[in-house]
C-alpha cells in the first residue's frame, strides 16, 4: 500500500481539523446560549466525512447527513454560510428556512441537502446517479447513512434499485454503534453491517472509520469503479459517536468504558501522530493549522452573528420554483 501524495495528506488533515474546530465552536455557542434550535455533534466522524468527501471529483454529487459536517466543508460550503444557517440567519444556506445542517444543499457545489426523515436522502442521491447514467456522464453520487438508518425500508429499496440499475452510487454506512440512545444489538441481529449489501447483490466493504486514509482509499476505489460503470458499493465505516446525539443529549446511556476505548483512537489525533511520525509535518505545522482553523471559525461566528435575521415578510416566498 503506497502512501498517498503529500498534498492529499495535508488536505485530509486540514479538513479534519477544520471540521473538529467548527464542531467544537458549535458546542461552545450552544453551551453559551447563543444557539438557535438544536445542533448535532459529529465528533468521531471526521475521518469518514472528510475521507469520503475528498474521494470525489468536483462534478460528482455528494449528499451528506447530520454527522457529515466534514463533507459539507470539503465540498466547498463555507463555514460562514454553515454557521449562519445554524443561527437561523438570512445569510445561511437556507436563509433561515431550515436549521442546523438540515437542508444545506447547493447545486452549484453539487451538494444535495438532507431532510430529517432518515435516510430519505438515499434515493435522491441514487436518482442523481441514475441521471448520470441517463446522460452517459462520467459522474458519481456519494451519500452517507447511519447504522440506525440501515434498518429502514428506504435504505433497502435504494440499495436494491441502485444494484439492479448498476447506478454509479457509493453509500458510506457510518456505523457509530448507536442510533440516538439505541445500541446496535437492540436495532439488528447482525454486527457487520456491510452484509446489508448482500441482500441486494451489491459489492460492499468494511473499513476502520477512524483511519482517514483507509476511508479515503476505499471510497476512492468505489468511486472509480462506479465511474467506470462497475456499479454501486456499500462501505461500512466503523466508528463511535463520541458525544450525544445532539447538543441537548448527555448520552448517559453510553458506557464510559466504550467511550474511553474509542477516545484512544480519536481519528484526528491518530492522523496527526501518524503524520508527525512519518515526518510529513511537525508540531509547529499542526499548531499553525489549528490556529488558521480557529480564525476561520471565529470569522464564521462573527459573520453569522452580525448577519440579519430573515425578513418575516418573505415567509411565503420561494415555496415554488418559477
Amino acid at each position: 500500500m503506497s502512501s498517498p501524495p503529500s498534498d492529499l495528506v495535508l488536505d485530509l488533515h486540514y479538513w479534519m481539523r477544520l471540521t473538529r474546530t467548527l464542531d467544537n465552536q458549535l458546542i461552545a455557542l450552544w453551551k453559551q446560549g447563543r444557539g438557535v434550535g438544536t445542533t448535532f455533534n459529529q465528533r468521531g466522524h471526521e475521518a469518514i466525512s472528510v475521507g469520503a468527501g475528498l474521494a470525489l471529483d468536483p462534478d460528482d454529487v455528494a449528499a451528506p447527513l447530520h454527522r457529515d459536517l466534514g463533507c459539507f466543508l470539503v465540498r466547498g460550503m463555507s463555514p460562514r454560510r454553515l454557521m449562519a444557517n445554524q443561527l437561523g440567519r438570512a445569510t445561511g444556506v437556507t436563509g433561515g428556512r431550515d436549521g442546523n445542517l438540515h437542508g444545506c444543499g447547493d447545486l452549484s457545489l453539487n451538494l444535495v441537502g438532507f431532510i430529517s426523515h432518515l435516510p430519505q436522502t438515499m434515493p435522491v442521491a441514487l436518482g442523481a446517479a441514475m441521471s448520470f447514467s441517463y446522460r452517459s456522464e462520467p459522474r458519481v453520487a456519494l451519500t452517507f447513512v447511519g447504522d440506525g438508518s440501515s434498518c429502514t425500508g428506504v435504505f433497502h429499496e435504494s440499495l436494491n434499485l441502485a444494484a439492479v440499475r448498476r447506478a454509479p452510487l457509493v453509500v458510506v454506512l457510518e456505523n457509530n454503534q448507536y442510533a440516538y440512545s439505541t445500541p446496535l444489538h437492540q436495532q439488528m441481529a447482525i454486527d457487520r453491517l456491510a452484509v446489508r449489501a448482500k441482500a441486494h447483490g451489491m459489492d460492499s466493504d468494511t473499513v476502520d472509520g477512524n483511519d482517514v486514509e483507509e476511508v479515503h482509499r476505499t471510497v476512492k476505489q468505489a468511486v472509480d469503479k462506479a465511474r467506470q460503470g462497475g456499479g454501486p458499493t456499500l462501505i461500512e465505516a466503523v466508528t463511535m459517536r463520541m458525544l450525544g446525539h445532539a447538543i441537548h443529549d448527555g448520552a448517559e446511556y453510553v458506557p464510559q468504558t466504550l467511550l474511553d476505548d474509542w477516545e484512544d483512537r480519536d481519528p484526528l489525533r491518530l492522523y496527526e501522530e501518524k503524520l508527525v511520525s512519518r515526518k510529513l509535518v511537525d508540531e509547529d505545522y499542526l499548531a499553525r493549522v489549528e490556529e488558521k482553523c480557529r480564525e476561520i471559525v471565529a470569522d464564521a461566528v462573527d459573520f453569522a452573528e452580525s448577519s440579519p435575521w430573515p425578513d418575516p415578510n418573505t415567509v411565503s416566498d420561494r415555496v415554488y420554483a418559477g
Partner: protein
Amino acid sequence: MEGSSNSAPTLTYIEAITDALRTEMRLDPDVMVMGEDIGGRFGGAFKATKGLEDEFGSRRVMNTPMTELAFIGAATGMALMGLRPVIEVQFADFISTGFDAIVQYAATTHYRWGAAVPWVIRAPSDGGIRSGPFHSQNPEAWFVHTPGLKVVAPATPADAKGLLIAAIRDNNPVIYFESKPLYRSLRGPVPDGDDATPIGSARIARAGHDITVITYGEMVRQAMAAAEESAPQVSVEVIDLRTLKPLDRDTIIASVQKTGRVVVVHAANRLAGIGAEIAADLSQTAFEYLDAPVYRLGGLDVPVPFSPPLEDAYRPDADNIRAAIKDTLNF
C-alpha cells in the same frame, strides 16, 4: 377526418395521456417515464405508456421494481439534476407507499434550499368500477394540504393532454390525478400540437345563472348530466376545477357572484376534503353573495367499498347532484 396537423382528433382520455407523454418526450430529451410495469410491450397496468419504449428506448422508459419510496425519491434526484421524470404509480392508492419521498422531501426542497424538483406523478385514481378499497382511492386532499406541491385533475381528454404537458413543463413537483372511470369511456377532441392547459385555471364547463356546481375529474361528467337533467327549469353553471392546488379562486368567485348558490362535489371522502376548503373559503370570501349555504357532496367517511350496491351508496352521482341542486335552490 382531415389530416391537418391543427385539427383536433377525437381521442379517449387515456389516449390523450399517452399523446401528451409522446409529445413531450419528442420535444425534450430530458423527459422520461418511470414506474412499475410501464415498459416493453406491456406498457403499464392501464397501457398509458404502451408504445413509448418502442419509440424512445428503455433508457427513457424505465421499468422499476416495486419500490415506491426509492423510485419517487430517485425521481427527485433526477429532477434535481435537470431531468423531468414522469412517474406512474400503478394506482393512486399506492401513492401512500411513497409518501415521505413526496410530502417530506420533494415538497419542501425548493422552499428550504432553492432547488427545483420538476417531476410529475401520474396517479390513476377514482372508483366506480368495482375495484375495492385499495384500487379506488382519491387521495388528493392529503397533497393539497401539504405545502409545496401542485395538484391537477383533468376531466376531459383535451385537459388530460394539456394539463399533463403543463405539469411536465412546470418546475415543481406536480401530482396529476387521472380518473380511471374516464380512461376508455370518455372520448373527445384533443388538439394535435403541444399546447398546455395552464395550471391554476379552472374551466366553465357549462355556463348557467341559477346555481354553480364546482367539481373535477369524473364528477364533471356526473355534474354535466345533472345539469342537463335540471334544465331548462334550472340553469346550472358547472365549473371544472382542473387544478386543485393552487385553486382558481377568481373563476369560482365570479361564478358565485352571479349565481349565489353552490354545490361542491367530489368522489373523495367529503370529510375534510377539497370541498371543505372551497366551501369554507366561499363562506368567508363570498359571504354576502351566498343566498344559500354551500352544499358539499362527497364520498362517505368509509373505505371505498367493493360490492356494487355499497360502492354506489358510497359515491356521489348525477342523481345525488341533481338532488343537491334542488335542495340548494329550495333553501
